[in-house]
């Protein structure tokens, strides 16, 4: 069959097909383009009109007392509420535990940072004998890191810092004992930091002759250079002995 025969053959197709093919129009009429847009605008306008009315509707029971409403709500939700409470409690406990662990870790880090800060302050300013002695104690406490955990060391450093503050605030002889027992990391034997401050009226600087530190057992003696670098006229000689000792055994 050649194309001309096929073309002739098509002329015998059903009439409906031929009329449809010759009269059908598929060109989109311009007005149809705007129908969706008009529908959208109408919907927006309708919503704009209805929304304020819905918004202004008053609550159903303005005259009910809070107690009555609460009672009713409680009675209505009695079956489902306990299950929710249990779930919330468990969640809260878990969160608290995590928080505690986080804070412990942070305090340990902070204490280690304080150690460095104390070192820095002591060696750069060195204003008083107390500071130098405290420096020696801090050094001893730092030395114990190898044999103790950082938490114990940090606690000792904190105690020494307290002794330093006390020594600076008075010219009288003072003594004190700080016992460290509460360590977050668990059963660690108690560590006691004993400090003692002696006041004299000599204009000389105090030379720390001995440090008996049970934790690190390190002795620090002030050098002549560090003493001479102090140009401050000290009228009160303060002797501070800070001793950190372990109550039982050697750590």
């Amino acid at each position, binding site marked *: *069959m*050649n*194309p*001309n*025969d*096929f*073309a*002739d*053959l*098509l*002329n*015998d*197709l*059903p*009439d*409906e*097909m*031929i*009329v*449809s*093919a*010759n*009269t*059908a*129009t*598929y*060109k*989109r009429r311009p007005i149809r383009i705007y129908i969706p847009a008009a529908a959208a605008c109408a919907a927006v306008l309708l919503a704009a009109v209805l929304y304020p009315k819905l918004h202004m509707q008053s609550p159903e029971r303005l005259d009910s007392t809070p107690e009555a409403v609460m009672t009713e709500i409680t009675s209505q939700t009695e079956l489902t509420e306990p299950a929710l409470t249990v779930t919330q409690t468990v969640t809260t406990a878990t969160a608290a535990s995590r928080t505690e662990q986080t804070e412990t870790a942070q305090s340990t880090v902070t204490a280690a940072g304080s150690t460095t800060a104390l070192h820095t302050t002591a060696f750069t300013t060195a204003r008083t004998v107390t500071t130098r002695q405290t420096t020696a104690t801090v050094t001893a406490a730092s030395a114990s890191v190898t044999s103790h955990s950082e938490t114990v060391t940090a606690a000792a450093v904190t105690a020494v810092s307290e002794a330093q503050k006390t020594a600076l605030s008075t010219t009288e002889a003072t003594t004190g004992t700080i016992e460290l027992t509460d360590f977050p990391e668990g059963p660690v034997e108690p560590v006691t930091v004993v400090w003692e401050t002696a006041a004299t009226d000599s204009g000389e600087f105090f030379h720390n002759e001995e440090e008996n530190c049970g934790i690190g057992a390190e002795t620090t003696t002030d050098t002549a250079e560090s003493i001479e670098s102090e140009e401050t006229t000290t009228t009160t000689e303060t002797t501070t002995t800070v001793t950190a000792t372990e109550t039982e055994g050697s750590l």
Partner: protein
Amino acid sequence: MLLQRREEQALRETEQQYGALCRSAALDILGNAQDAEECLNDALLTVWNSIPPAEPENYPAFLLKIVRNAALDRLRSRQRGKRGGGQQDAPLEELAGMLSGSEDVEQQVERREMLEAVTRFLETLPKKQRDLFLRRYWRFSSAADLARDFDMTENHVQVMLSRIRSRLRKALRKEGLL
């Protein structure tokens, strides 16, 4: 019906009601407005001579078929003098590609079977694709005109026609007609 009563008013009303459609169909086939106008006049004369005794159930289809036959006759007589090259040759060439290799079968297949097979195939097509196919191969509309009338791009028209031809070829082969 006026034509059955042999009233010339029937031709004027036919011209008024279907003149534009028939003129457009003839113009698609012939590609020349003057030839299309003459083709329409020939078709009206054929209608006048055919009714009666013919009693067409679908008068527009009847009229369109006469217009098309007249246009194809005019086209072929013109092509005998000057061979091809116009847009009207393209649909025939496309159909030749689809029908290639059918010479051996041609003598064994009756025209009626082919028509029924094509009709069945066209009935399976979506209406838009069927109209597109017939506008191209019944009326020989150009791709540009089809793109405009069917709200498609010319490339899309060509692709869709190619797919329809491929499917028709496959369907005819399946029935042993190609």
